[in-house]
């Protein structure tokens, strides 16, 4: 009989409170990882999945403690063994890949030295051997300039590259077990494909066992052999991937699956609010960026010639990969980052570029909801102060009115009134995001700019926030600018979609027209990159011509021609790289910025469309 690489038996982990209280967060977990097997731990935040993965290194985060059970790595109990032995296994036989490579790499040490550190430290390889092995791994992971990328510092490579470099770091000492903790969650969908593809082929090739921690069922379906569904530190369901995906037995698993967004199609029903007649926002020929502004153009341009309008009570989604300028657009509409030139008109009146010179009335009309509630909320203020502040500032309410209104607003965002006295750190991620939203709503705005408000949240929590936003939209008649990198989230919610690429609008129009053919080639790439809940999605997708062309190249901004030229499978050499693409009006306010004319745009005769049918 084959012995398992890792055997977890009746594992208990407690969190220690300040006054000596103990709370169980992992409650008697049992599972095994066989050689070469990829086991997925899936669940929402707070399910204990990361604690279990870290326990497989014999490690508990500060404040946590093992409270019983065994974790045997090839017969050695990681909990009871000596500190020295544990340290000898860490980074050598068992390697860890964290969620955010940007935070996991030491910013002051060259990448190569960090990749080879554990292999050299554990005397697996000499420095020279390790350096050579690292270069081989960079090749395997399809990293550009494999010979010299190790000389760089972490800030000098892209997020997707850093994530793969972290895989190289884990693999350098030839581990027998890899722990992957949400390694693609922080990435763009397009980048996620390239990273997943590298991970999958590498794990298969090296025959390494792995534990894959995630909240994303669709991602797990691509890479895992066995799925364990966790909730509140207990196993809900466990079984082979196919069985869990196709025949989920437990209600909780089905709930998780329901929260996975369906493939975006044009067959959706989205209502515009009944409350009409409020203010509209128009953006016209907006240029924005960083550095000094000369002749209406910034030193480092980010956005170029952005024009769109936001009818009252509707939702305009702005989508694109990180770095495309979608957040910059939100910031310059709000005036936080003053635009270099162009107009932003609210109800026909042009708004000053700078926040500081806008009237209090105008400030009140446009509110911003930031991505990270953790950093947007003042940790030293109670919920009542956070939500009460805009009421006092914009509406000059007295103390009693503020108190009553705060309670009303909390109710509006489905939060219990007893939370008013809490501090942000005493709230869950979803609750914090609701408070963040409530703060913006308290100003009674006309336009709410939501910047990636669900991307830091679990699938289920994120889905709940979206449904809350939909309800608020029809109830209050607020218009939304919804910034997201995730076209599948947007598809469930937006009336109008703007696709940004490298600072220009490549496609815009009513959501159902944008989500149906003909597509801009980049829109098509985004659609093809949304993970689907079937096990062969990744293998299919990497075969598609648009993803092949896109993952081979980085975003390059050319002085002339179409910015998408280098990654576009339909690019016409001599045209697309020579001149700027024209804006093609496809009717019904739908336009595409592309050299391909309407008929040649990717559309009817392609495999993706047939599949969606």
């Amino acid at each position, binding site marked *: 009989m084959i012995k398992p690489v890792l055997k977890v038996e009746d594992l208990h982990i407690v969190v220690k409170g300040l006054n000596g209280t103990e709370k169980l967060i992992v409650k008697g977990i049992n599972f095994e990882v066989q050689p070469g097997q990829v086991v997925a731990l899936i669940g929402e935040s707070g399910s204990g999945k990361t604690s279990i993965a870290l326990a497989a290194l014999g490690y508990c985060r500060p404040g946590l403690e093992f409270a019983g059970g065994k974790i045997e790595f090839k017969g050695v109990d990681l909990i009871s063994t000596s500190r020295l032995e544990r340290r000898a296994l860490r980074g050598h036989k068992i390697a860890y890949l964290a969620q955010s490579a940007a935070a996991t*790499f030491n*910013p002051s040490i060259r990448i190569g030295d960090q990749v080879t550190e554990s292999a050299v430290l554990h005397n697996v390889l000499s420095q020279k051997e390790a350096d050579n092995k690292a270069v081989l791994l960079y090749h395997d992971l399809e990293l550009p300039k494999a010979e010299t990328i190790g000389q760089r510092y972490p800030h*000098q490579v892209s997020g997707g590259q850093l994530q793969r470099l972290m895989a190289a770091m884990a693999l350098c000492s030839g581990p027998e077990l890899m722990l992957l903790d949400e390694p693609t969650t922080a990435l763009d969908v397009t980048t996620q494909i390239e990273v997943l593809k590298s991970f999958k082929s590498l794990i298969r090739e090296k025959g390494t066992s792995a534990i894959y921690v995630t909240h994303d069922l669709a991602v797990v379906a691509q890479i895992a052999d066995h799925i364990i569904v966790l909730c509140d530190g207990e196993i809900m369901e466990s079984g082979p991937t196919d069985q869990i995906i196709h025949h989920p037995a437990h209600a909780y698993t089905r709930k998780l699956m329901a929260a996975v967004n369906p493939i975006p199609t044009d067959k959706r029903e989205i209502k515009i609010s009944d409350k009409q007649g409020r203010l509209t926002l128009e953006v016209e020929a907006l240029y924005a960026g960083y550095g000094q502004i000369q002749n209406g153009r910034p030193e480092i341009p980010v956005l170029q010639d952005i024009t769109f309008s936001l009818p009252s009570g509707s939702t305009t989604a702005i989508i694109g990969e990180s770095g495309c300028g979608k957040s910059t657009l939100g910031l310059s509409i709000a005036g936080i980052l003053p635009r270099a030139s162009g107009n932003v008109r609210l109800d026909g009146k042009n708004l000053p570029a700078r926040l500081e010179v806008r009237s209090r009335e105008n400030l009140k009309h446009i509110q911003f909801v930031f991505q990270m509630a953790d950093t947007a909320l003042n940790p030293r203020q109670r919920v009542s102060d956070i939500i009460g502040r805009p009421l006092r500032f914009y509406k000059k309410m007295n103390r009693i009115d503020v108190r009553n209104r705060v309670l009303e607003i909390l109710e509006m965002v489905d939060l219990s009134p007893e939370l008013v006295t809490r501090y942000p750190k005493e709230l869950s991620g979803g609750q914090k995001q609701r408070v963040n939203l409530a703060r913006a709503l308290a100003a009674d705005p006309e336009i709410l700019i939501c910047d990636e408000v669900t991307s830091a949240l679990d699938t289920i929590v994120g889905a709940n926030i979206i449904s809350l936003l939909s309800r608020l939209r029809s109830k209050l008649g607020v218009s939304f600018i919804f910034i997201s990198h995730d076209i599948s989230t947007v598809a469930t919610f937006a009336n109008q979609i703007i696709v940004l690429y490298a600072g220009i609008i490549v496609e815009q129009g009513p959501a159902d027209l944008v989500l149906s053919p003909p597509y801009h080639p980049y829109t098509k790439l985004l659609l093809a990159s949304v993970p689907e809940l079937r096990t062969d999605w990744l293998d299919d997708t990497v075969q598609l011509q648009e993803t092949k062309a896109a993952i081979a190249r980085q975003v390059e901004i050319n002085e002339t021609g179409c910015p998408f030229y280098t990654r576009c499978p339909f690019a016409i050499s001599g045209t697309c790289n020579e001149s700027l693409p024209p804006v093609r009006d496809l009717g019904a306010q739908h336009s595409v910025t592309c050299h391909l004319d309407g008929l040649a745009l990717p559309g009817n005769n392609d495999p993706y469309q047939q599949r969606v049918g």
Partner: protein
Amino acid sequence: MLLKRVGVGLLTLFVVSILVFIGTEILPGDVAEVMLGQTATPESLAALRTQLNLDQPAWLRYFGWLADLANGDLGSSMTGSTTIETLIKDRFANTMLLAGVVSIVAIPISLMIGITAAMYAGSAIDRTVTTGSLCAVSVPEFFTATILVMVFSIQLKLLPSIARPTPYMSFFEILRTLTLPVLTLSFAIAAQMIRMTRAAVLNVLDAAYIEMGILKGVPRKQIILKHALLNAISPIVNVIALNLAYLVSGVVIVETVFAYPGLAKLMVEGVQTRDMPLVQACAIIFGSIYVVLMMLADLASFLSNPRLRHPK
């Protein structure tokens, strides 16, 4: 970027020179009154003022002084016939000697204690260090100095209570005579550096890359010395620079207690005699040292941060 920083430094010095000049103008009385003392008559005062150019308008004197300064001429003392340069030369050397010895003693020790405290945060060692350094920072220097003199000079008769290095002393004699002021000053500046080092290292220890180090099996000592310290250089260097600047300009009390002939004491003497060129010269020297030290600290922060050193 670096040029800009130097430009800002020079501008700071210029502003300092104006402030110093205004400050000395505001002081009541002038050198003529001090020199003539009881014998002053309005006529003799006016005559002396004309002789010393004190009757000219302030801005004219300021620009004359600035022009001389730019040529490296600090002017001559108003109370004696000597140039300020000769007055300052020896005192400056003494001040640098004391500051140098204190930094050689205090900086490495503080860094070691601070890092150790951070490594064992929450332990008995850490608590002793934090409480001890808090006490040290709260004790005024004259008190420390007095206690040290009482114990080492009066009771034990081991060390001199007056620190006056002369050119005839041997190296060890100089060290012996400096021991008590060095101890007093080290005590005063170490506390701040220890606390800052501890805080800077602890702050970095929360980072995800430190946890990654643990998960890669890197020993604790190596995590601190390699992964954490590299990212804590900037705040540590800044607090060191601030303390060095203090050692040069702010040690007048210690100089007085030990009768040490340093620059700070000279400046105070200048104020007493209303010898404005002397006061101005000292202030400009202190200002320059401060600006240079801050610039060096910025340079060290810049060099320690790869994001600034290698922009994308």
